[in-house]
């Protein structure tokens, strides 16, 4: 009978190599795991943004390399009435369109939150303006607003005989401005309505039941339950809506190209017009960069303003 002895544990298990030890080292592992994500962000997000910001400080034109000129582009924009016009219309467009989208979108969401026949079908239909490519809806609105062939003018003049002349929707500055805002509201309502509908459905029905037992009216139920409970999602949706509206490009470019008399240029369309069509890449980039402070302000205002706890608690203090 032979007796074998097991090798001692320390002899059988070899020490891990330096690579294995390196990967066991937590800080190194964190860096290794994050590097691909940071690399992707750098290449696809930071680089284009950084290049755009850099161009804003150069006199680069299409076909010619530029040199660093500091704030010269911004100084010029400060004296440019067209830039000021675009700032005014961008703010006006965003304010009115966002208000319109939220008023109608919230109302639509409240309607769709009720029980009625063909509810699912109607909810799907509401999404249509959001699904249709923006350029396609822009072309449709371009036809609707046509000075000679507008369907609205046709109805009012030839069918209902309410007017004797066509409506010149896009031929005067204020007409064109409000026409574009109407198109933007039409396009933006589904996003607001469906997002808020999702929020409405998270509110527990027991809250409403309790309120009704206490004798709360419909307005009181909206004021003290629905509205405060919706505030977090309203803040998020409004933040996104403001960003989408302020940076809108397709609707305006397809319908008016910034006309008439440059009255409907948004900062985005003016940046494109100057930077790409006009070849002034540096100046175009500067116009685009000039949008950043407005966006940051609007985002902070809507997010922090609406997300304050006092709204949710129905109280006057934070």
């Amino acid at each position: 009978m032979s007796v074998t002895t097991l090798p001692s544990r320390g002899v059988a298990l070899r020490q891990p190599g330096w690579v294995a030890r390196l990967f066991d080292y937590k800080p190194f592992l964190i860096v290794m795991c994050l590097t691909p994500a940071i690399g992707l962000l750098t290449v696809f997000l930071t680089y284009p943004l950084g290049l755009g910001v850099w161009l804003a400080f150069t006199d680069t034109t299409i076909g010619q390399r530029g040199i660093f000129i500091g704030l010269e582009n911004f100084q010029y924009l400060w004296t440019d009435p067209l830039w000021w016009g675009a700032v005014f219309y961008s703010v006006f467009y965003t304010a009115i369109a966002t208000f319109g989208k939220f008023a109608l979108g919230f109302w639509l969401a409240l309607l769709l939150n009720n029980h009625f026949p063909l509810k699912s079908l109607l909810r799907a239909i509401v999404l249509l303006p959001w699904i249709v490519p923006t350029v396609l809806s822009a072309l449709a609105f371009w036809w609707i607003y046509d000075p000679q062939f507008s369907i609205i003018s046709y109805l009012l003049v030839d069918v209902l005989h309410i007017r004797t002349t066509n409506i010149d929707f896009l031929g005067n500055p204020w007409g064109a401005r409000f026409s574009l805002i109407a198109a933007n509201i039409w396009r933006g309502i589904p996003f607001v309505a469906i997002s808020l509908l999702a929020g409405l459905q998270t509110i527990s029905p027991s809250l409403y039941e309790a309120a009704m037992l206490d004798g709360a009216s419909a307005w009181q139920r909206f004021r003290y339950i629905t509205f405060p409970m919706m505030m977090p999602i309203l803040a998020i949706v409004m933040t996104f809506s403001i960003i989408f509206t302020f940076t809108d490009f397709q609707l305006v470019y397809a319908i008016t190209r910034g006309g008439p008399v440059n009255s409907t240029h948004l900062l985005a369309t003016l940046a494109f017009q100057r930077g790409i069509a006009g070849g002034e890449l540096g100046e175009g980039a500067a116009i685009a960069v000039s949008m950043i402070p407005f966006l940051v302000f609007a985002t902070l205002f809507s997010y922090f303003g609406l997300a304050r706890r006092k709204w949710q608690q129905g109280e006057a203090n934070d």
Partner: protein
Amino acid sequence: MKNDITRREALALGASAAALATTGASAQTASAIKAADVPALKLAIEKGASLRMLRPVRFVQADEDVFRANAAKFTKETGVEVKVDFVGWEDINQQTAVTSNSGAGPDIIIGFSDAPHIYIDKLIELTDVADYLGKRYGGWQPLAQKYGKKSKSDAWIGLPFGATAGPLIYRKSVLQSVGFDKVPEDHAGFVDLCRKLQKAGKPAGFALGNARGDGNGFANWALWSHNASLLDEEGNVVINSKETIAALNWVRELYPTFIAGTPSWNDVSNNRAYSSQEISLTANGVSLYFSLKNDPATRAIAEDSEHQLLPKGLAKISPMAGLTLNAMVFKHSQYPNAAKAFLQYMLEKDQYEPWLNANSGYWSQPLAAYADAAVWSSDPKVKIFKNTMNSTYYDGYKGPISTATGAVNADYVLVQMCAAVATGASTPEAAAAEAEQRCKRYFRRQGR
């Protein structure tokens, strides 16, 4: 590839025949074009060469069909494959810019008018091909020389393929009904006519929106016919002048006679308004006439329509610049000789004449000898487009062509100057001063 050529050739033959039938020219008519006996320029085509080309999308279907068939013939004869892509008119500038900046992409791009002057550093010279073609086909016309040659030199940087113009088109019966046989050549007479047309319920309409072709065309005409211009001969910005103020005052007087909505018009708006008989006078290319003529529902409008060169006003000749197709070969091309040989081939009589005829007058020739092509005698109402490239007016007139002249057009600076005054948004003085500020910035940055 063989099958492809056969199919395309068949298509092209059909298209050519259709185009010739449309223009009334017999397919059997012998060519009247005289080519001088000049030894052909022999370019040593690189071994294994293949070419990629971009050009603006066709306005007349036969334009594309015959162009493709000619390219296929070139492939058959030389073995050089040519891939031709057609892109929208609004996109060609951006795609050229990307090609130019990246140094990659198509070997040849046919851009518009001043494109070679914008990308001049990225292009190869085409002087040898241009000289040969000029000697063989009666010389290059003035507009072709202006857009083809580097400013103040005889070096060719682009090869113009043709130009389209936007003269007046009007309803003969409507003009006669208000006491005019044709459109007056003087400014006061023109306003008088437009007032009477408006009273008759068939007003005039000219684009004042951000319209690349028609809007810029109207603005340039308003300025040039008052002897105003963007630049002087030395390239100084002279837009803020007493001539410009006079032109803007005239626009302000004229605008109330237009149909409502012209400040929002783009390039198709006047076509639709004229076709639907909402207006009786506008400016447009020959495409409007042909679309009316080829549709039985609107043929009567075509028969009642006449073309006339834009009124001279104070200018010596009709102030009209043709939108020119201008071919460029990029330095990054691996096969520059093949590219030059291809352009030369496409402008030779055997290829160019069928293409010119197939376009029904939409493009007019850059080389003098092609003025004898059958298309120009096929329809008296088309003949007016024959001499488009004889014009001495061009975008950036009277100065040297540069990147900035194109930028001013692309940014609609002059159109918006006119629109601002027309709509009362600005005084002539203020509008001219604002345009001057904008133009000076472009010329300071890009006019080099």
